[in-house]
Each structure stands twice: as C-alpha cells, then as structure tokens.
C-alpha cells in the first residue's frame, strides 16, 4: 500500500488505496503552501476527497505536515444511535461534534480553522480570491453577501480559483497564495450554480448543517493544477447581493478599502505593524470597489471590463 511515486495526483489512487492511507493516517494532501495530514475512517470523507480533490497532490506519510487532523467518531454509546464525528488537530477539538453525514463538510471547515488560527506567517483575510494568470482579485465579504456564488460562477467562467474563503497574503511581497480547494456553496446558491452550469461537478448537498444546506463545487482541474502558484493583488472588490439591482459598482476611497481589509482580516491584530504596512501597501497597489449585484451576467461583464 504505497504510492507509485512519493507524490502523485489524488486521481491516480484507487478507492481502496485512498481509504487505506486515510485510515492509517498516512494521507498527506498538498494545498497551496500547506500540507495537511489527514486521518479518518469515514467513507464519506474518502469519497468526497476523491470527487473534489482529484487534481491535488497527495503524499504518502509526508516527513512534515503543517497540520495533522482527524475526523473520528467518539468512543461513546451514541455512535450506535446517531453517530457523531469530531474534527481534531493534534487531539484538540475546536468545535462541538456534528452528525456523521456532515463529516466531509466538517473537514473543510476544520481545515479553514487550522489555517485561520495558526498561519500567522501570513496576513489572512476572509475573502474569495480569483486570478487571471497572476493578476488577482480579492473579494472580502461577510457571510451571506453572495461572495461564494460570485466566486463559483467566475471559477466556472474561466477564472483561476485560488480560494473561496481565505486570502493568504505574504506580508512582505504582498503575493496572495491559493489553495484551489472546493467552493462551499450554501442554500439558494447551490440551485443558482446548478441551473447556470449544469455540467459543474458538485457533491451531494448536505442538509441541516449550521449553515443550512451546503454543497461543494469541485475546482476546475486547471485551477487545482496551479494551486501552488501565487498571484499579485490588483483588485479588491466586496460583493453584496441585491436582487433589486443588476450591477452597481462603487469605487472605494483608499481609507475605506483599508478599513474593508482590516474588518475582514483574521489576524490583523496579531501581525501588528507588519499587518498595517502590508494592508496599506495592498491598498495603494490596487483598485477597490463595492459591487452590488443581482445579475451574475452583468457582474461578470463589469469585472471583465476592469481587466482591460
């Protein structure tokens, strides 16, 4: 039970081998600048990894992993009644347990948590990041703003996906790193994306999570293949869904753009002076907008216009 090469795309693994690596805790997954080592016996975790991370690189027993995580059932009687799972990093469970059918969604949330609360070598923003070549657009926004919907639709329209949740910025170079992990769609946006892009590869929606029904959109293979290629931030755009409008952009003054970055940062306070310097340089090196949109075509057209 070893990989043919020390590193291989996940799609080259047979389901049995994937399952065996996962349950032995030998499964290393590379995503952007990070390596996750994952242990789980949940079939749903293996199936979804195979479905959604096919183009990502897998390492058997990586010598070093940034995060060692597990999705496991606690050894209690409850496992026979309504099985629950815990997400743990090095034995620490940051969240309460969730029903076992949410195991993969929990792994995704847990991986975000690992990065957001431990990777202070970067300035971390709650933002979607997309790019054309190495020119990136960073979309910081609060949950429920239509960020993931816009991110998913741009991803399916030729943009390179770096991340739908986390902008991982080197404070010195201001380069933004990608993860090219699946886009987490919630509730109505699942339908919107499915209707618009019937060919899009998504996993079966998981109902009744804390965030409602969630489904994960597979990143295009071209994005996943470039998951370790960072990009330069050219545009900052905060989307806000508004059904009454088609597409209404407003350019932001630098001070407001800076406020927007700080508001959406996970670790601005941790980075101190370096955080301020990085954020203010990003603002001075890019243009910033608020984009209220109700129509995805109009939003796409406007964004394409900015590239010229």
């Amino acid at each position: 039970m070893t990989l043919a090469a020390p590193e291989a795309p996940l799609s080259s693994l047979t389901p049995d081998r994937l399952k065996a690596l996962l349950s032995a805790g030998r499964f290393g997954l590379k995503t952007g600048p990070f390596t996750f080592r994952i242990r789980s016996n949940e079939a749903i975790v293996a199936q979804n990894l195979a479905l959604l991370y096919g183009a990502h690189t897998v390492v058997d027993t990586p010598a070093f992993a940034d995060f060692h995580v597990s999705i496991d059932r606690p050894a209690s009687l409850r496992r026979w009644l309504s099985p629950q799972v815990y997400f743990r990093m090095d034995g620490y469970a940051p969240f309460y347990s969730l029903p076992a059918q949410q195991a993969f969604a929990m792994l995704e949330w847990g991986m975000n948590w690992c990065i957001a609360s431990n990777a202070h070598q970067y300035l971390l923003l709650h933002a979607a990041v997309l790019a054309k070549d190495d020119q990136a657009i960073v979309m910081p926004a609060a949950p429920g703003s239509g960020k993931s919907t816009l991110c998913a639709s741009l991803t399916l329209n030729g943009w390179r996906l770096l991340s739908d949740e986390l902008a991982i910025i080197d404070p010195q170079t201001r380069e933004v790193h990608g993860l090219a992990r699946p886009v987490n769609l919630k509730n109505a946006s699942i339908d919107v994306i499915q209707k618009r892009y019937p060919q899009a590869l998504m996993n079966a929606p998981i109902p009744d999570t804390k965030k409602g029904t969630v489904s994960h959109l597979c990143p295009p293979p071209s994005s996943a293949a470039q998951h370790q290629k960072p990009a330069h931030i050219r545009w900052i755009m905060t989307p806000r869904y508004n059904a009454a409008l088609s597409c209404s952009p407003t350019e932001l003054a630098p001070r407001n753009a800076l406020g927007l970055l700080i508001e959406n940062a996970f670790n601005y306070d941790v980075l101190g002076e370096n955080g301020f310097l990085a954020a203010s340089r990003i603002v001075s090196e890019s243009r910033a907008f608020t984009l209220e949109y109700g129509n995805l075509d109009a939003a796409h057209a406007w964004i394409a216009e900015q590239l010229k």
Partner: protein
Amino acid sequence: MSAAGIAHCKRLASLFAEPQKLDVLSVTEWDTLIRIARRGNTLGKLAECAQHTTLNTALPGAIGNTLQSALTLSHRQERAIRWEIQCLRDALADADIPLVLLKGAAYLARGIPAAKGRLYSDVDILVPLERISDAESSLMKAGWASTHHDAYDQRYYREWMHEIPPMKHWRRGTVVDVHHRILPRTAQYDPDPKRMLAAADPVGDMPGVFTLSAIDMLLHSATHLFHEGELPNGFRDLLDIDALYRRLAALPDFPASLHTRAKELELTEPLALALRYAHRLLGTPSDKPAGSTPRQKMLDWMYLRALHPHHPLLDTAGAPAARLGLYIRAHWLRMPPHLLARHLGRKAWMRLFPEPDPQLEKKEGP
C-alpha cells in the same frame, strides 16, 4: 505517561535549555516536536529557541513558516501584555494601590527566560484584601467589568475563593484575575498573602509595578499548579517552574532559603510536588525526589499521566482517569467535603440543565 512520553517531555525541555541541539533535528523530528509543542501551548517557546540557533535559515520552508507564525503570535502577546500592565498600573494608581503582578505577566515584567515565547490567557494580580473593593471600582472606572453575573458564581468567588470573579475589559476583551489570597479561603493550606506582599519587589524599569520576590514567584507557581483541577497548560506551567528554579540555583544559600520560605508560608507540600515532577519530567536540577508511600505512588500515577502536553502521541490509556482523579483532588484541597459536595452537585446540575448566559464565552461553532 509512557516511558516514550517522558522522553518526549525531557527532550523538549532539554531543547529549550540548549537550543543548539535543534541544529541536528531531522524534518520528521521537527514534525513531531512542533505537534507536541503546539498542543502544550509552547510552540512560541520553541520558535524563540530556534531563533538563537545557527541553522534557522536552513530549515525547510514549511518548518520555518510554522516557527515564524508562532514567533509572530508570541510577539503580539508580549506587546499586548506590556500594554495591559501599563493600563492596570494606571487604573490602580487612581486608588493608590501598587500593581503586584503574578505568574506570566510577572515573568514578562522581570524579563525571566520563562516568559520568552510564552502564551498568556490573562493577567493575574495580587491586591491586599482590605483594598479589594477599591481595586475593583478603580478597574471598573477604567473599563473592566465583572464577567460572572450569576448569583451563585458571585457567591462562589466572593465567599469561598481567593480571587474576585475575572474582570474583562469592555473594549480590548482582555481579562484580569484579581487575587487577594494565594489559595481559596476554604482551602486546607493557608499561606499568608500579607507575607508575600511584604516581600514584593519593584520592577526596575516599570515604576509602580511589583512582582513577588524571586523565591515567592516559584512558590506561587508551584502552589498554583498543584492545586489546579484541570491541566491543559500543566506542561507549560511546569516549564515555568523549571525556569524559575534554574534562575535561583545560582544564589548562595539556595535551595535552603527556598525550603525555609516554603515552611513559613505553609507551602512545603506543593513545592515538593513541583520539584518532584519538574525533576522527573524535565530534568530540573533539584534534589532527587524521595518517598514512595502509597499516597505518593498514587499522586505519581496521576501526575505522570496528566502533566505532559495532552497530545494523542503522549496520552496513555490511563490519562482520562488520571485527569479525573486530579480534578477531584484539586476540589478536595479547595473546599471542605460538605461545600465540595454542594459545589460539584451544582456544577453537575448546570451541565445537565444550563441556563443560557450571553456573557459566557461560547466555544466556536464551525
């Protein structure tokens, strides 16, 4: 803890003491070391140590990144605690109460090696009992507010404990624990806080700021750890004890002065435990632990399963039982049996039927 577990703890402690040993670690060894250090809340310490080695730049990128992250976080904490110390000093100066720092904040103010890269959860201070309400109102004026509003909790703290309910700053969210005693009023041991306050030392470069004397700091650290019911930071606290002990070891009449003082303050028992386990788990250069009474064997069984970082690599099958045992022991030391029964009964009831309290910090939802 398994023999391998003890070896891991000693190894980590020896790397903290002699960082040049980090130079020869393999990537896989770094992987294990970082995992254990992170779980023990001592990754910042490891990163500080790695800074002083020659090979820092030669480390593979991901390891260097992890250490850089830990360093960034520990610098942030240091800045925040320094700022907090100033704010507390100014607030208490209002009522003419000197600021006496305990534990982590004191190590930081004194520049003790134990403070380098340490993580802090809050600031602990010691105020004379007769000034406690003045201190409380000065802190309230400066923006700190009491966190436990439940009538039972208020009574628990005010009638039985050695501190008033933790106070949280409304804007910064920082917490200060205001102590007026070393141990709960209801505890079996009765160290006199007045004696410790009388021996408090001014901090040279921080006018108006005091810490306990060097020996009292060690005694306080030991007392605190060995009356603690839950030990998520037990390993870190034991490292503090190790660092404080090594720092004192150069004094001419040491360790006799330490034991004399422990007797004066009725703290010989926690001191003996602290030195016993610091010696066994970290190799602290104290006297070889003696004694193998059944009671001591029982304590060894529990502490050697609970004081290490709570990492699955180190945990043994007995760890949950050991932790439960220590939880019960801590409460036993804290209160006489009738109060204990009442208190644990109340806690069990509240766990089954909690009253929603928006003030309580919630565990993060995913």
